[in-house]
């Protein structure tokens, strides 16, 4: 088949809502878009371990410590599935990490905010994992097979994280006045950045149309953001916490909650690297990577020696 015929076959596959698999022909733009998106997603899982990992050693009960450790462990697992999914498109994990460390691939801007209190862990679970699920459930039907399948597995765990975050937030809200205040303060800080997780508004999202045509994106940024707001408002009422938006109110005509104006200047600033923790997050990642270089080199040297000796190499644990 020549390229034209391949393009026709690809278009037909997308039109029939079929799945593209690694060995199938695909347009270069499709491949590049997916690598960028899946790598960004993988990097977010890995960088996301930092703000929450910040509280593992200080968790206020052993039960909460275990839940948090298990969650952070899940996020490392998500990173691994996603790097593997991206590798099927022809870029190695090593290369993706180099691009992350060089600031040439992104991660979700949400992880550039700090976690000064324990309630931030609950807020991240409830709002950030909640927003992630809203974004990711449609991706389980993404046209690229390996990404769609990774998402099915990941979404199950994310919804578990979201429920645990909500439950932790409820316990804080119903706890002592100090705990309640801590929970409210965290919501005040995390609400708007969570809404920004859905990306720029539809009239300022240049790549969305192509991603939608390719069956990567199923709903627009604003549609997903609205869905998230509609889910969160009643949940906040159950929690006895106030979402920090005076314009938030039910619009019977639209059948949705109206919400206030998002500060896109802040979003752009964080994207540019000027959020509170951008430099710290990348510096920590780079440090871990360079501190670990001798360990990875040792593993590679050992594997090479064993291979030369014809022995079986112990599988990476």
């Amino acid at each position: 088949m020549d390229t034209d015929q391949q393009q026709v076959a690809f278009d037909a596959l997308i039109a029939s809502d079929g799945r593209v698999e690694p060995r199938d022909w695909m347009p270069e733009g499709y491949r590049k878009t997916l690598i960028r998106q899946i790598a960004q997603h993988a990097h977010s899982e890995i960088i996301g371990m930092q703000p929450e990992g910040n509280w593992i050693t200080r968790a206020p009960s052993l039960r909460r410590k275990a839940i948090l450790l298990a969650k952070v462990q899940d996020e490392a697992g998500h990173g691994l599935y996603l790097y593997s999914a991206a590798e099927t498109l022809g870029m190695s994990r090593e290369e993706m990490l180099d691009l992350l460390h060089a600031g040439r691939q992104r991660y979700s801007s949400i992880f550039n905010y700090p976690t000064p209190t324990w309630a931030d862990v609950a807020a991240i679970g409830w709002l950030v994992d909640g927003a992630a699920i809203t974004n990711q459930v449609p991706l389980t039907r993404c046209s690229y097979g390996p990404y769609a399948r990774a998402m099915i597995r990941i979404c199950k765990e994310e919804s578990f994280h979201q429920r645990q975050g909500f439950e932790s937030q409820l316990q804080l809200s119903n706890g002592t006045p100090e705990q309640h205040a801590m929970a409210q303060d965290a919501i005040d800080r995390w609400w708007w950045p969570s809404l920004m997780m859905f990306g720029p508004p539809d009239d300022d999202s240049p790549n969305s149309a192509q991603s939608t045509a390719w069956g990567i994106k199923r709903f627009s940024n604003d549609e997903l953001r609205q869905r998230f707001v509609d889910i969160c408002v009643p949940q906040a009422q159950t929690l006895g916490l106030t979402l920090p938006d005076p314009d938030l109110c039910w619009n019977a005509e639209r059948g949705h909650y109206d919400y206030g104006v998002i500060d896109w200047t802040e979003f752009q600033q964080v994207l540019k690297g000027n959020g509170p923790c951008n430099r710290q997050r990348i510096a920590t990642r780079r440090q871990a990577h360079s501190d670990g270089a001798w360990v990875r080199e040792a593993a590679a040297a050992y594997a090479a020696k064993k291979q030369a000796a014809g022995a079986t190499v112990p599988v990476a644990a």
Partner: protein
Amino acid sequence: MTSPVSEQPGAAPANADVAAYAIRLGDDALILSHRLSEWTAHAPQIEEDLALANIALDLLGQARTLLAYGGAFSGRSEDDLAYLREERQFTNLQLTEIENGDFAVTMIRQLLFSCYQHELYRDLESSTDAQLAAIAAKAVKEVSYHVEHASTWVLRLGDGTELSHDRTQAALDAVWPYSHELFVDDELVRRMADSGVGPLPSVLRPAWLGAVQDVLTEATLVLPDDDWQPSGGRNGLHTEGFGYLLAEMQHLHRSHPGAQW
């Protein structure tokens, strides 16, 4: 589960000795879990972020059952024991509290400790205390994986590059002295051995040494001299870094007395 007793949640130890013994083992698991969890987001590769968190989580699970069981004798919860005791009341081995150092120190410490815990739990599976026997039977499977993980890494690091070999030998030299305390017999463990609750630690050493030596030799590492033998953990005497660990672990819980989380 070996007997109906072990299936009763909240079963209390028969006497203060068994309670203190369970708390010792719980403290070991709790403190090493804490140290391992410090690696989160700092590991050499993502597989290790995951593996170290997984081992930390296993140890935390063991700590929770052991502390809940030990505490039940005196009406203290797992959290009372973890968060409200002072440094001098913690009875973990010093090996479990020493700082992470580089990845080689962490893996050597893990190899020495997990091999010890494996021998101990295998013995405890036939404890006359049904609850401890049940806890050990579950934990021994987890610990087998910890031994395998640490062994694999000690082999790779010891027999990897020249640099990794030197760092791992240095790690072994630094950590080895703390291994002696694992096998010290004191009055409590003698009473435990007499009543068939648990083994004399000294009895575990030959099998432990055999297992550890096999790995170290294959990893081209040299066993250090048995000169300095620090101890005191079982009597609440700890290394200077331990107070900082507790300060970090306990501060939030203590800042909100009586709060539920």
